[in-house]
């Protein structure tokens, strides 16, 4: 069981939160818009919190000081980058994962020590493999 904070209840964020929650992790999901919590599964037992993940007070309310994993999956690359760096450098969260759509930005932040994922690169690769057959 891990204490996990997810920032951004996007399709990916909402689904990930529901999956991790079903596995028994202690999940808190944050979004600036309460309407996005509709994406959570009806069985979701974790915490859904309206708040801005680039605001230190909101992060504290979400329990960042005790979190073991922080995942930034809002729609904005820069917001994810900023929140992830806050989690890592201010709150010393042991594991921080950050989604960055822009592959070049992703590479740079990876070399700066962030654990980053670029869905653009991954999805393009998958599609290319499909086409190549």
């Amino acid at each position, binding site marked *: 069981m891990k204490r996990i904070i997810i920032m951004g209840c996007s399709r990916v964020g909402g689904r990930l939160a529901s999956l991790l929650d079903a596995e028994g992790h202690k999940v808190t999901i944050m979004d600036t818009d309460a309407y996005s919590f509709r994406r959570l599964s009806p069985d979701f037992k974790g915490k859904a919190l309206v708040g801005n993940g*680039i*605001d*230190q*007070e909101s992060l504290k309310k979400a329990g960042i000081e005790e979190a073991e994993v922080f995942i930034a999956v809002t729609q*904005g*690359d*820069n*917001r994810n*980058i*900023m929140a992830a*760096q*806050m989690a890592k*450098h*201010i709150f010393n969260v042991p594991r921080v994962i950050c989604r960055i759509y*822009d592959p*070049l*930005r992703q590479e*740079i932040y990876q*070399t*700066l020590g962030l654990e980053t994922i670029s869905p653009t690169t991954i999805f393009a690769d998958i599609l290319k493999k499909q086409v190549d057959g």
Partner: protein
Amino acid sequence: MYIIIVGGGRVGFYLAKGLLEENHEVLIIEQNPAICESINDELGSICTRGDGCEVATLVEAGTGRADMFVAVTGEDPHNLVACQMAKHKFKVPHTIARIKNPKNEGLYKTLGIDVTICSTNVILEHITEEVPTHPMTHLMQIRDRGLEVVEVRISAGSASIGKALKDLSLPAGSMLSVIIRKGQKPIVPVPSTVLNEGDQVIAVTPSETEEAMRSALRGQ
């Protein structure tokens, strides 16, 4: 100097104008085409359209040869990322970020942004300077040493009036530099100097003991 400004809003526009008057080479990166156009109409072709966080735009802007990189959009995350890209990818020696939320100042410092400008803090500083009842004014910050230069006014009713400096418990690592007294030359304080009502004390103190310095000087 070649200075790149990200964000062509009011701050970016007037900053560019001022820098051009000082004969610097200036380029503004702005996403909104209408704003770009109006800047180019007014200041000459100094504005390029693009996202100041994107490598392609930054390459085109010649970020590699920039002496200074200033991000003044209205969004804290954009300013942070733009400055980090300039610093780490293009090795720009000086990066300056505008911040809206004063709480982000520490984060930006940790992440290697050279200078942060927080308009909220600037306005706050002016308010405290303008309001005479406010007991302490920040004069300067010596960031890399974690020190503040502050001015403390000894207002009527302060318990420290009539006391010698050696009897006040000033925080460790702090130092009183000068006392300004009405109608007198500035005084270099010694342990036996006695505080008077209306004295202005200029002191250097570690940022974290600022409050203790204030209390000590006002004798609370």
